[in-house]
């Protein structure tokens, strides 16, 4: 009994010793991948430690740090406390983490890493996804989980009515008379439900060749004012939106994935990463159609912005920086990105992933997965996701003001004025505190 315990202890000790001998550099990764993606992340790190890590003497500890907002809050608290040694070597952040990360004293940006590694070739990275993590000309991180917004539709229902998937807002409006008013179970059938917010409004304005805010949507310099007012893009969108509402096809509420999956909503604009969840929920009751994001009008170009998360690095130690860079390029490489895409519905952030068998097999079985990727290829290169300081307020101000236009029957011009006042107010207040 006792010897058995001793033996186990000895074994554990040797295992520990050999592990630490092999792993000369130990680094930490903080991530926010939950559900299936979390299991995949653990699997990736395991593989890395067993292969590349073993060769180069790197050991990675992956730690889940809650949702993106929790992890960002943790990063902010650490930065405010000035305890930079607590920060990990590699961290996964979403858009809200960009500005605080850029301000961190120990941020080891991709641009800095590229100076240390002139041989590195990032040309295979999906360019709209790369741009998404570029702030004021500095490449902060590399895209890890990438997605865009798609239009999902109930293909069975549209086929039965003999109509093709709509491409513009007015075509969605035209469905109003063509579809039944209730579902087979007698429930009300909603055609489309959506509350425009920062990313979706940026999509529609981008299609019209306009940014939402200046500073190229806040990516080149801190946004100070709206830049979609004088060029008329905002009013153009609001007019189309109000016209759509007046056809009765639009419900003034956030679209519901559940209602869509239950067959009670025909069209849903949602993240491309929701493909798997949707297929699960629908469970074969109807055919899931996936199409590019609807266009504001016929003249608009197609496309939508990128969202998701990236990996960034911290630290000053040369060996750890080296190890972090090795891990980061591996995690954003074709192999891992193809697996991640196949397992979750995120888009591969590395164009090399498209050649991998696992991705090929996936899109052969479920062509819905590929729509997001082809959409990004068509999206104008000038389109940027929005980075603004007062992120949450901005998001809800857009929702509320556009919603008020419909409920209180304001003219698109009045609504545009209201938006301009509210959003510019938020931006100038932010500038007051962050000159």
């Amino acid at each position: 009994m006792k010897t058995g315990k001793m033996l186990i202890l000895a074994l554990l000790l040797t295992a520990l010793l050999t592990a630490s001998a092999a792993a000369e550099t130990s680094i930490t990764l903080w991530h926010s991948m939950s559900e299936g993606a979390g299991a995949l992340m653990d699997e990736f790190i395991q593989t890395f430690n067993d292969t590349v890590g073993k060769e180069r003497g790197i050991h990675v500890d992956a730690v889940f740090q809650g949702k993106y907002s929790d992890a960002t809050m943790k990063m902010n608290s650490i930065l405010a406390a000035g305890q930079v040694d607590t920060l990990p070597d590699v961290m996964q952040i979403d858009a809200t983490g960009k500005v605080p990360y850029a301000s961190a004293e120990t941020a080891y940006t991709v641009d800095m890493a590229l100076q240390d590694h002139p041989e590195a070739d990032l040309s295979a990275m999906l360019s709209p996804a790369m741009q998404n993590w570029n702030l004021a000309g500095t490449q902060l991180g590399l895209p890890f989980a990438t997605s865009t917004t798609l239009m999902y539709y109930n293909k069975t229902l549209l086929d039965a009515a003999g109509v093709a998937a709509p491409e513009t807002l007015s075509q969605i409006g035209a469905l109003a008379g063509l579809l039944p008013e209730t579902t087979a179970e007698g429930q009300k059938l909603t055609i489309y439900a959506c509350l425009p917010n920062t990313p979706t409004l940026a999509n529609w304005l981008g299609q019209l060749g306009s940014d939402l805010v200046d500073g190229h949507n806040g990516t080149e310099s801190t946004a100070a004012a709206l830049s979609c007012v004088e060029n008329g893009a905002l009013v153009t969108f609001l007019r189309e939106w109000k016209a759509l509402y007046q056809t009765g096809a639009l419900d003034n509420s956030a679209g519901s994935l559940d209602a869509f999956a239950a067959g009670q909503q025909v069209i849903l604009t949602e993240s491309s990463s929701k493909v798997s969840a949707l297929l699960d929920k629908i469970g074969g009751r109807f055919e899931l159609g996936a199409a590019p994001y609807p266009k504001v009008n016929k003249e608009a170009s197609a496309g939508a912005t990128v969202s998701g998360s990236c990996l960034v690095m911290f630290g000053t130690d040369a060996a750890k920086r080296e190890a972090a860079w090795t891990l980061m390029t591996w995690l954003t490489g074709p192999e891992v990105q193809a697996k991640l895409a196949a397992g979750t519905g995120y888009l591969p952030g590395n164009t090399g992933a498209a050649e991998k068998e696992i991705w090929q097999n996936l899109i052969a079985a479920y062509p819905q997965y590929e729509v997001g990727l082809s959409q990004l290829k068509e999206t104008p290169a000038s389109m940027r996701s929005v980075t603004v300081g007062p992120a949450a307020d901005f998001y809800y101000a857009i929702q509320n003001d556009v919603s008020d236009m419909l409920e209180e029957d304001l003219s698109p011009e009045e609504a545009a004025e209201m938006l301009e006042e509210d959003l510019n107010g938020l931006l100038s207040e932010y500038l007051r505190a962050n000159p």
Partner: protein
Amino acid sequence: MTKKRRAAALTALDLLALLMALLVLFPVFYGVCGAFKTPEEFAAWPPTVLPNSFRNTENFTRVFAQAPMGRYYWNSFVMATMTSAVRLVLAVLAAYAFVFFDFPGHRTCFFLLLGTMMMPPDTLTIANYQTVSRMGLIDTYVGMGIVSFAGASQMFMLRQHFLTSPKALREAAMLDGCGDLRFLVSILAPTASPLLMTLFLQSFLTQWNAYLWPLLVTNRPEMRTVQVGLTMLTTVDGTNYEVMLAGAAVVMLPAMLFYAALRRFVSRAMENGPLLS
């Protein structure tokens, strides 16, 4: 005759109460049932309460496969027990001071402590993180609990309770040469044991269900608590309700068992406890 009618009325009252209890508990029941459903069932019309089969335990398998729940349970248990115990002891002492000592400014002090209930916790987080990490308490149970050691709400309830206990009791004890601490521990606390249990339980459950703070002050996976483990399964704004509910059930059930066990203790204490007379 009237006795019979009275008994009948009481039975009716009991049944009505039971009915209302079931109604109150319905959301919990619904949630637990949901943990056995498949994604398809959640999107099906008409909605159901019961799952197709209680044998569908796949969601639970996923919960346990994804996170080392055993370790998380232990962490949550230790953290919640320790924090609640300290919280209660401090609250008892403070409440005793407010009721039995008459010192200048004691009313002001009472309201100052009560004021801590009204500070939005989010405003305190960042500064507290700095304090706790400077104290070197990151990745410790104490670090997870220390910000909750001062429980104004418990102190307040205990004060209310002590105020109702006869002043003569203490005077008599003092005359017998009993010190304040001994009076508190051996006479006053036992009479308050049902309340102490209820407060302990409430505090325990609050700590058991805490999420953001334990997440912030732990970096090592082996120090994580059950609620943090739950978020690894799924986010609150996620869409796979069935796994979320399975996770919630897995976290909830031990807490409920703990409650049921304590309740028996409480009711026994209530029946046998020395009554004030």
